[in-house]
């Protein structure tokens, strides 16, 4: 079972009290964008086998969204951070880099 530290409650939470929200840090495109960009925003996800930055909702807890860095191949969690961050913080990128020094996703 997946376990994260909710960055707001600062307690360990598990999957049963969370709701997954898919890929994080999507750039929203709005009216005036090209069809291709709008399609990409709506449907084209990275869906990597490896490091995935994603959103989770602490539904049966504080009720807030937060971000998680997780590996979809090994289920290793590299940390959680606030939903207000627009990109992953250095601490988490360092943790990933330590695990995967060549910067490549795990195969």
């Amino acid at each position, binding site marked *: *079972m997946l376990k994260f530290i909710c960055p707001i409650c600062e307690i360990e939470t598990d999957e049963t009290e969370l709701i997954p929200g898919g890929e994080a840090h999507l750039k929203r495109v709005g009216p005036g964008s090209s069809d291709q960009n709008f399609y990409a925003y709506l*449907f084209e*996800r990275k*869906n990597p086998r490896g490091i*995935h930055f994603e959103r989770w909702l602490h539904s049966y807890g504080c009720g807030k969204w937060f971000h998680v860095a997780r590996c*979809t191949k090994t289920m290793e969690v590299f940390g959680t951070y606030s939903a207000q961050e627009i990109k992953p913080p250095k601490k988490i990128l360092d943790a990933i880099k330590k695990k995967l020094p060549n910067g490549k996703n795990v195969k």
Partner: protein
Amino acid sequence: MKKYSAFSLIKESFNNHFGWEKAWKKNNLKKKYKVVIVGAGGHGLATAYYLGKNFGIRDVAVIEKGWLGGGNTGRNTTIIRSNYLQEESAAIYEKSRSLYEKLSQELNYNVMFSPRGVMMLCQTEHELRAMKRTYYANRLFGVDTEMVSPARMKEMIPIININGPRFPILGGLWQPRGGTARHDAVAWGYARAISNWGVDIIENCEVIGVNKNQNKINSVETTKGTINCEKMCFVVAGSSSILAELCGFRLPVESVALQALVSEPIKPVMHCVVMANTVHGYMSQSDKGEMVIGGGADGYNNYTQRGSFQHIEETVRALIETFPFISRLRQLRQWGGIVDMTGDRSPIISKTPIENIYVNCGWGTGGFKAIPGSGWATAELIANGEPGELAAPFSLERFKEGRMIDESVAAAVAH
């Protein structure tokens, strides 16, 4: 290829069954093929089969990273039905179901297709109304289904609890021609047929790249060497995004885990397949007597072929209300597969941004039932370069054009 028959069985029994030849050959990879199909699961093998059968294209390699039928083909709950709401879906699934009916004879390989009937339960007023709508749609489209009353359901499936309390049975949508088949045998049967034509099935051969010239590929790099090809089609379910990335585009799919489990074997208690969509569970009894149970997919991206414990618990908890007797059964095995989900829960059989690459993916939680129809439609697409009637609605373009084939509402979880 030796024909399987009662006579060959008798003949071989005099030989202590040492005379049987291997069902398919393990050939070495050649340098060049007309068509390379990536993925030796049900859909990939069926595609190769109908390419050979309907279009005479037999200069084909089916390459596979793992082993034949080792992905979702070997991990599903083997349900075959075609009672879909949307016309486009009903067309391809009904084609598939009708091909399944004669598949054993056609392949000379017993796929154990058992048209034992599929019952979809209505456990809320809304579901009853939605199923009636599906029933009318099915009638208009010529898919043989009927609505049954709770009393008749109890007669047909004595182990069912129709009184609730939480989710009483209000009716059911019954497809008498649906059923199950032996999943491995479907892959093995197709493999045997295409291998006999000289199609190479290469296992342990992973695609690591493609060589592009402008908007066309001319060869595929694999762990067993480079293959030149005129056309390539990838049929790799949960790994579709990875292959698409290698080819330089993205697909509107996400990979999640879907689990299933079987109980210990018991005497026959239920002759048909039962699907309870409201509570996310479906169950049938295998020929060995195990209760085969499937449930909902996980909600997050996953490539581990393991799922979450609580989903199994939810599924079983829900089914115990409808089938109280299963509470005393022990679980024998549980497993997970990686399924590629699209936004509208309908598959993709399509051309791609690369001219000579085709894709068949997005079957999500319900690909097994579609194997023959999907292979038929994909073969047509590869051979002609343009989709035929069956495949045309399932193009990638539909997402851009907002032309969804929305089965997520109609079929919900239980596909």
